[in-house]
């Protein structure tokens, strides 16, 4: 952890670095860290670099949740079918 220092040319603190994270992640790889102070902090602070790695890992892993795992009960389709038949009673709908 980097110690806090008020001077402008002083190293960035963890709190200061972490304030930038929502924007940095939103910018993605296109807006990669171009601020040398952010880069310097990331290179030298083990805690913040682990945090960034973990948050990126979570975002990456979230994509596997896109593949669905839950099925609605058969009752749902029955209700949909009945409502559709009531709204548009056509011979076609009665077949399904």
């Amino acid at each position: 952890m980097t110690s806090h220092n008020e001077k402008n040319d002083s190293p960035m603190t963890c709190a200061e670095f972490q304030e930038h994270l929502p924007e940095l992640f939103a910018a993605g790889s296109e807006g990669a860290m171009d601020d040398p102070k952010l880069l310097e902090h990331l290179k030298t602070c083990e805690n913040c670099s682990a945090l960034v790695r973990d948050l990126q890992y979570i975002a990456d892993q979230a994509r596997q949740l896109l593949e669905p795992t839950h099925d609605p009960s058969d009752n749902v389709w029955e209700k949909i079918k009945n409502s559709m038949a009531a709204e548009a009673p056509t011979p076609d709908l009665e077949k399904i």
Partner: protein
Amino acid sequence: MEIQGQQMTEPKAGPGLFKRNPPIAGEAEAIERAKAGDGEAFSKLYALHKRRVYTLCLRMLGNVSEAEDMTQEAFLHLFRKIGSFRGESAFSTWLHRLTVNLVLMHLRKKGLQLVSLEETINPSEEDAPKRDFGSRDVQLSGSVDRVALERAVASLPPGYRMVFVLHDVEGFEHNEIATMLECSTGNSKSQLHKARLKLRELLRQPEPMISGEMKETAL
């Protein structure tokens, strides 16, 4: 399609949208036949998309009964509005946007004021993620399986879960989420960051610590 004052438009198909929602074999033909009132074709569309629509509802609502009701609503809306689908985006993207709008409308009716998102869906102090200015801990990389992540997502406070599911799972952009939730883009980014921080905290806890109402439904 008009849902709660929002015009239902088709998102422009960027390369990412079709990559995340690739066309499904037989889908295009089923859409055209369903537009012409073919019931069997609609049944096929239901079979192709029911799991993703239901899973999306379940993740957003955290409740099986409500998720089934909203799945039913989504497909009935689809039945009524499929004629307005012009194929400018992937069909599943269009259907998911329709579903998200219906779920949000349902939540608003229940009293969740999404207009003042900042105040109403922010979690309580004890739910908020801890700031991480110094503690060193075990790294997550490589250690999180799908089941653990699903459980942790189910344990998130509703506001965090909503933004995380819409952005990181469903692939909506912050500006789209901001429009849907009627909040600022900055608020969407901030909620997402807090959601990921909270997930990190949950995933680093021993497994029995991760609990939630949806535990049994999340698996």
